[in-house]
């Protein structure tokens, strides 16, 4: 796990206490501090990564991960329009859930991505694989993220990958959710390009994929 700076630790602490005001203060201080060259997202993203990893290792709950990502999304809302980098603004990320109506994972990934400056396009939930392919192509997505809770849904990721291939698309598909955690080999079997173990992983993976595409 990456060692956090003092400020990042304070931010994590405020998130765990669900203290939105303190989070806002810490980021506001970040913006006004004269000797500070750190961008606010350099506080937020590592903090969310740290929280995601703490969830993976059983130290905190999903509700804390969710609340943290929502608070981050909220406090970053006012900062992001002027601070988003062109790359983050221009990368077209699309996210959806197939054959499943459990949408919390998708919501958490969206919050994490927004906190990092991205503007993910929500394609919805309960979609058939072919509907997700169609929507991703329509939206001209650069990267497609799929959140799954049920095994029956995770298996259909393969249909999405095949559907994209048939359409001549090379959009990378990133998956995440319980079936991939409980059955670690599954994501490769579906033909997905990457798997995230928690919602904050999405930011890392997207940055990596975008870096490779450049």
């Amino acid at each position: 796990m990456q060692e956090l700076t003092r400020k990042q630790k304070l931010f994590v602490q405020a998130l765990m206490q669900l203290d939105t005001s303190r989070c806002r203060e810490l980021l506001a201080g970040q913006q006004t501090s004269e000797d500070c060259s750190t961008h606010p997202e350099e506080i937020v993203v590592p903090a969310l990564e740290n929280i995601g990893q703490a969830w993976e290792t059983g130290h905190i709950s999903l509700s804390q991960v969710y609340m943290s990502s929502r608070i981050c999304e909220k406090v970053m809302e006012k900062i992001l329009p002027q601070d988003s980098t062109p790359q983050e603004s221009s990368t077209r990320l699309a996210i959806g859930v197939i054959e499943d109506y459990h949408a919390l994972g998708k919501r958490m990934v969206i919050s994490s991505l927004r906190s990092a400056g991205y503007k993910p396009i929500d394609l919805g939930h309960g979609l058939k694989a072919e509907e997700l392919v169609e929507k991703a192509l329509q939206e001209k997505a650069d990267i497609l993220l799929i959140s799954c809770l049920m095994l029956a849904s995770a298996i259909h990721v393969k249909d999405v990958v095949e559907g994209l291939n048939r359409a001549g698309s090379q959009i990378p598909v990133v998956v995440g959710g319980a079936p991939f955690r409980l059955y670690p080999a599954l994501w490769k079997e579906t033909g997905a390009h990457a798997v995230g173990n928690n919602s904050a992983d999405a930011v890392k993976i997207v940055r990596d994929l975008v870096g490779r595409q450049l």
Partner: protein
Amino acid sequence: MTMTSAERLQHALAHKEPDRVPCVIAAAMHPARDMGLSIKEYFSRPENIVEGQLRLHRKFGNDMLCCYPFAAIECIAWGGEAIYFDQGPPNCGAPVIKKPEDILSLEPPRVSENAALKANLKAISELKAVVGDDIPISGVAVSPFSLPIMQMGFEAYLDLIFERPDLLERLLQINADYCVEWANAQLKAGASAVMYSDPAFSPGIMSRDWVQKYGASAAKQVISRINGSVMIHLASGRGLPIVDEIIHAGFFAMSASAEEDLGELKRACKGRLALVGNLNALVMNHWTEKDAEAAVKKAIAQAAPGGGFVLMDNHGEIPFIVREDILLAVSDAARRWGQYPLNWLSDYEQ
């Protein structure tokens, strides 16, 4: 001496060693395939479920039966809908609580008048008429603390806990009254015990603060009003950090997650709380018969000595795609290696 399933479970749950480790293959959807029906058709008639449960007992020797079709029955009962899939369990459709203020006028379903719940009760009583006291039937009730995930969606529920604790308290009380009525109706229809489905109680899902403040107090209140024994099922969720809370709430057994060390969990629960689990159903379809046998032996070695253990999957529902030959391998291995006394353990440990 060979015991009936009821005797076997009673011994095991009382932390004594029965004739063999009780085993339940919770393949609730599999009989549909056997009977040439879609999942939706299968669950549409109580008679199908009764026949299906009897088939599971004949095929796998299940020591406990269960007529509860799927969690989304709660959505139907509360006026919502279930969305069916060909290869998996139905999901809940649109939330019945669309905005927090809806809680102010929320009315719980009356169990005795609700078609979906009455059909489930009919299945229990018909199955009970066939199996008598030899094979226990488990009832299922979703906890007041977890039910809002289906009533309003998980995201809206978490926001409610954070933003509107006043409405949350009201919702939990409405749900508690419903949960008690529903559980007691199942016991009256012939269920021997109640599985209290509470994934939100797991510290992997809700923060310890919220579990203690809302989940544990709801559980205590409900258990004290249910006319039978109650086990908690965390639906794959981890439970080791909250063993004491589970015992304190009054549960007699808990599910064991595939994501935690069953041996460690056994040490924490020994003599106080029986364990049910923890085969990883999500990987079963990729098992060979040898893998199945190895997984069964490992679980028995970790949790069966001294009783207090029922072999089952970790989620309480085996995915529809898992092949029957693997499930047969699991039940065969449970019979072969689950005979008490577990003399083979000394060699296994070496």
